[in-house]
């Protein structure tokens, strides 16, 4: 390794150049994942790239119906500033850790860590978000449901950084997020569900967390609910309790949970079904 051990680029151009030159260095944003590894001796980075000074990563804006959230935006800011724009993501943000964690932890860091339990992921998948990955070669967009490869693994290469997420927004997009944990604060999700009903585009989105090796998109359940709400692509039919129950059952079938210290597979499967039913009911209550 050459150059100083700690670098703090201030522009995205400098960040991606440093990333290309030093792919072995550890990227640190809020530190809430990396520092746990450091403090417990699991991680001894020889060099660190602190992304916290890059102003471009700390902005969010809506342009032409798309919300772009910079990777360095904290969950605290998503919780307080974006609750009206992306309520499901804001609800997920509010459930992250504690106020101290939300003040530091960023959405880009959540994606960089790529945990199957990451709180932002189900909402991003359900909302049809894209992940903006930047490198010296340019920027590419990856759909959120194609980003995750396994626990802690994603399609992001060692030359890339998460630059932003892009989320379609609009008045007709109903959205809910629910998470189960052992208490309200400071928990890693035992299971999480996000449901989106986009009345304009006639699109259903369902994202699941902590019930598989990656966050999961429940595509079959999406198709089932869309077909029931807009039969043969026609006018909207009010949802029945049976429709929502069939949807929730299909969501449960999409889950691939395991037994671990936080919960059993059977409990997780049950929990996603219940949360899917509740989220869909909440989304559709407003549109009957």
């Amino acid at each position: 390794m050459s150059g100083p051990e700690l670098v703090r680029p201030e522009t995205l151009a400098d960040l991606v150049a440093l990333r290309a030159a030093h792919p072995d260095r550890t990227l640190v944003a809020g530190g809430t994942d990396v520092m746990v590894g450091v403090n417990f001796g699991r991680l001894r980075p020889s060099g660190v790239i602190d992304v916290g000074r890059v102003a471009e990563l700390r902005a969010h804006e809506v342009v032409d119906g798309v919300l772009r959230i910079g990777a360095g935006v904290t969950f605290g800011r998503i919780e307080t500033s974006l609750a009206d724009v992306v309520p499901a993501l804001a609800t997920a943000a509010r459930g992250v850790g504690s106020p101290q964690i939300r003040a530091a932890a960023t959405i880009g860091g959540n994606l960089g860590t790529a945990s199957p339990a990451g709180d932002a992921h189900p909402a991003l998948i359900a909302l049809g978000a894209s992940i903006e990955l930047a490198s010296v070669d340019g920027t590419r967009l990856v759909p959120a449901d194609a980003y995750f490869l396994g626990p802690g693994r994603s399609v992001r290469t060692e030359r890339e950084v998460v630059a932003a997420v892009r989320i379609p927004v609009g008045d007709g997009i109903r959205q809910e997020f629910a998470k189960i944990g052992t208490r309200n604060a400071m928990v890693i999700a035992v299971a999480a569900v996000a449901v989106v009903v986009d009345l304009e585009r006639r699109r259903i989105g369902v994202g699941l967390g902590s019930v598989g090796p990656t966050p999961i998109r429940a595509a079959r359940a999406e198709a089932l609910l869309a077909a029931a709400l807009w039969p043969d692509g026609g006018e909207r039919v009010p949802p029945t309790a049976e429709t929502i129950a069939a949807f929730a059952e299909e969501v449960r079938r999409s889950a691939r949970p395991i037994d671990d210290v936080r919960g059993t597979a059977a409990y997780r499967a049950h929990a996603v079904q219940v949360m899917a039913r509740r989220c869909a009911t909440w989304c559709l209550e407003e549109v009957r």
Partner: protein
Amino acid sequence: MRLELDVNGQVHTVEDVAVWESLLTVLRDRLALYGSKNACEQGECGSCSVLVDGEVVCSCLVLAGQAEGRSVVTVEGLDADPIATEVRCALVAAGGVQCGFCTPGFVVTATGLLRDQPCASEPAVREALAGNLCRCTGYSKIVEAIARAQAELGR
């Protein structure tokens, strides 16, 4: 590496800091500021809470190098702060201190809260304190202390 850290309004030069050292270890081991406690080292307990650029964060989760160029305020730096003073007095008056280990973290967090939201409701206070663990008091007396501090500050 060599760092210049603005802690409690004073710039300290710290030599030979490893890239992976946390702000907490530098505060305690280099600057002899022992008010920020080292407990869980994973952001669960809030005992190491400090203000960085006015925001309450766990100093165990901040790289020391990340804090350079930012304003760090520890519980020691809140000695003369009027909000923190009321919080400390109220914690004593309400019986919100038993073993005292978690207390500095609660003082920092509550001070940050009452600066931003002087009239925070009790549920908002409980939510704001969710990242600070106390194994003695059962929290009721700590929450009561925050209400007392709010009442005093509102006079």
